């Protein structure tokens, strides 16, 4: 089920109603668990079995890890959990990719093997709930958390519908303590939650699907090179689409959880106002970047083993982070470029310039440079193939001067206005929180803005298309 659908409106109204009935807390949690499984099964019922398998195995394995005292046995149980989770991920997400690359490799050494095509359907959100679940067993292994006593609580943590299919990627410490005592939203929480849902839907339905997606789809969808203006507009449009799509989802997730009385942290913080790439990654998909930091980068050494090893660790983390987004070399290059940016930035900070407190003008210049370079990476993220990405970059460099214009004026105007508006808004919000801005705004302006966002969502009549991050 997607948030931007009439089915979700009805579903959420029923869940809210049930959650606010005078029922025992255990019954309310059971309602939430059943609702979460219905939410997931409403997309493709059989894949709920994978979610159950991952949940049950990780809960049992975590108990075994905690019970064992012999390090080897603890490690063996950990491998059971990692094997299962990464096995599911590997088969469903990377099966075809690995097969194709194996085939290419074999062809390279003269062995021509034509395997049958696997028709594998990617279970929605598998990358997200796998990471939820894996973080738990790893935390138990590292003795950072105690095993959760009840399977029921762990199942609700993994399956909680608000963040089940596209994050934020939560840790048990984010959510499980909140399950321990009765929680329903206060009137203020409910209202603010609804406001956040409206804002998230506006980002998704109006900006991502209404404004940016048609432009990005057109520019990246044509089988011939486009002109320089169209190439830039298409790339900027995708940059707006990917942000509004994913940040929109995260905002709805945060708002929906808050309506039920649960607090989920933000997943984005004005990333297009970032000054530098480490700043960008503190603002973009925060739950993934902290997950990779805590469960990959630091365990493989982080910055504790010398400068060269640090660079290697950054690159490894970013390449795998890229691959997490999809089974295609374009994603690996996307991650690799971000790795190079981070390494270069670290080197520049240490070797060339004193980074501390640049002037406002320099900050703006650095923010623009960061935004432009991030956009270069989005070309690889959006293009279906490496050659398509290269063609697009050549178009952006003006190497296809004869290429035809393809974008209608109305799309050009919409893209320019909305991208400028988006970047300006993020710059304004760079060091502010939404809560502070709302507190300081005049009530009439706020009400008009809230009503206008809701009105725009309704009259845009979204197509109910899935969020981009569902496929990751």
């Amino acid at each position: 089920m997607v948030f931007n659908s009439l089915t979700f409106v009805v579903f959420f109204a029923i869940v809210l109603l049930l959650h606010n009935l005078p029922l025992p807390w255990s019954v309310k949690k059971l309602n939430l668990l059943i609702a979460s499984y219905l939410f997931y099964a409403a997309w493709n019922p059989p894949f709920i079995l994978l979610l159950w398998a991952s949940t049950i195995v990780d809960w049992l394995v975590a108990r075994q890890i905690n019970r064992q005292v012999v390090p080897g046995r603890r490690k063996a149980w950990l491998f059971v959990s990692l094997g299962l989770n990464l096995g599911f991920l590997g088969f469903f997400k990377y099966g075809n990719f690995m097969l194709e690359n194996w085939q290419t490799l074999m062809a390279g050494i003269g062995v021509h093997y034509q395997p049958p095509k696997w028709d594998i359907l990617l279970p929605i959100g598998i990358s997200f709930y796998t990471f939820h679940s894996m973080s738990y067993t790893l935390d138990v292994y590292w003795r950072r958390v105690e095993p959760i006593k009840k399977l029921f609580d762990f199942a609700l943590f993994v399956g909680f519908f608000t963040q089940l299919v596209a994050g934020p990627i939560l840790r048990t410490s984010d959510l499980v303590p909140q399950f321990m005592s009765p929680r329903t939203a206060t009137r203020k929480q409910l209202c603010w939650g609804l406001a956040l849902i409206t804002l998230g839907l506006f980002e998704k339905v109006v900006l991502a699907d209404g404004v940016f997606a048609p432009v990005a789809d057109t520019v990246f969808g044509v089988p011939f090179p486009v002109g320089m203006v169209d190439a830039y507009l298409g790339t900027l449009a995708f940059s707006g689409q990917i942000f509004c799509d994913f940040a929109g989802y995260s905002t709805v997730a945060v708002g929906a959880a808050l309506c039920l009385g649960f607090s989920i942290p933000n997943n984005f913080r004005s990333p297009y106002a970032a000054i530098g790439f480490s700043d960008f990654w503190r603002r973009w998909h925060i739950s993934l970047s902290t997950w990779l930091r805590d469960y990959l980068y630091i365990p493989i050494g982080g910055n504790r083993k010398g400068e060269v090893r640090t660079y290697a660790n950054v690159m490894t983390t970013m390449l795998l982070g890229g691959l997490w987004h999809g089974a295609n070399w374009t994603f690996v290059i996307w991650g690799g470029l971000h790795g190079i940016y981070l390494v270069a930035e670290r080197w520049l900070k240490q070797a060339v310039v004193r980074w501390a407190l640049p002037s406002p003008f320099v900050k703006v210049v650095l923010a623009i440079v960061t935004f432009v370079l991030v956009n270069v990476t989005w070309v690889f993220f959006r293009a279906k193939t490496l050659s398509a990405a290269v063609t697009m970059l050549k178009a952006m460099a003006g190497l296809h001067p004869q290429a035809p214009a393809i974008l209608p004026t109305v799309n050009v105007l919409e893209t320019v206005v909305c991208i400028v508006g988006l970047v300006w808004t993020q710059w304004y919000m760079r060091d502010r929180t939404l809560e502070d801005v709302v507190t300081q705004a005049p009530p009439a302006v706020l009400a008009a803005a809230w009503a206008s966002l809701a009105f725009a969502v309704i009259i845009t009549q979204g197509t109910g298309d899935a969020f981009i991050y569902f496929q990751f």
Partner: protein
Amino acid sequence: MHLSISSSESDVQQHPAVELSPLPMRFERPIPFVSWTRMVLLTSYILFVLLVAWEFEMRRMGLQPGDLDDGRGYWAVERRKVDSGPRDSVVIVGDSRILFDTDLAAWQRLTGRRPIQLALMGGNAQPILHDLANDEHFAGLLVIGTAEFSYFADPGPPPEVIRYKNSESPSQRSGIHLYRTLSRYCAFLDSNYTLFSLLGHYDWPERNGVHGPYMGVWKIAESYDDRQSYLWQRIEHDDYLREHARRVWITIFTGPQVTTGSVEQISTRTKSDIDRIRARGGEVVWIRPPSSGPLLEIERVRYPRQKVWDRLLQATSSFGIFFEDYPAMQHLRCPDGSHLSKSSAVAFTEAYVRVLREHVGFLRDRAVADSTRASE
């Protein structure tokens, strides 16, 4: 990522035994300090006023509650009827002409059977025919409505509706029902009159070679239950929209004459699918609905009847109705040159169903069987 500058990692370095950053602390989301009751009431009031104003404006523009819109979800509902209904169902495939020009109630009145409407606006019937040929359950009467322009075009990949029907999720299915229910009361729920569609109705200046949405197909249909669709009544009465539609059709339909090779190739492929349906006891007939004015002239040049229509019927050994052959099907109102008005659609349906009843054994036999069953 927070890879090189993490304060939490610095903490870790001071505790080498724990090589990990601390877990996030539990936190409560801050709530903005505003008067929420007043805020919600004011927001609801503004939203209500905006929606009522928008609904009035949309109705002023000719949209009506009860016009259910059309889309892949509704198509999937009808397609499933083929599988759940009797094997000898009557199914209509084709493009917008047979979709708008067929009155399902008239069909039912004259034959006792309500056809399943699977025609698609701007659609090519070839892949739908192929889909039904592959469906072993279907052994009924297939009515293929053709504008030669769409049937003799490259069908491309399988149409979205077939992929959607095969992968429709339970939530999408329930969403269709909810949308249909709301559409009965809200005129503004129309995919052709969304915020961004309306922006495309302005004639913006375009760069050389760019075709903007102004010269695209705007709303031309009104749709009801069972995908009963008619030409949108506003096209009949609004000179500007009618002229726009005519200009768009002429732009789209203009092109070179179809090649003999293409006709032969498509006819051969079509015959193969038809043969499979006939082998199961089904039947296939063809309808060429009316067009008029400059558009008809273009069609006569691009798709000469002998070379295309006659050859198709011959190659597939089929019975077909070309509107120009029957007096009752001529002089009907074709406001945009390509589709009949609602009243003419009823007259056209009655006319072509009477001809089918007379010439197609499949219908005659079923009519006898149906009346026998009824009398028993």
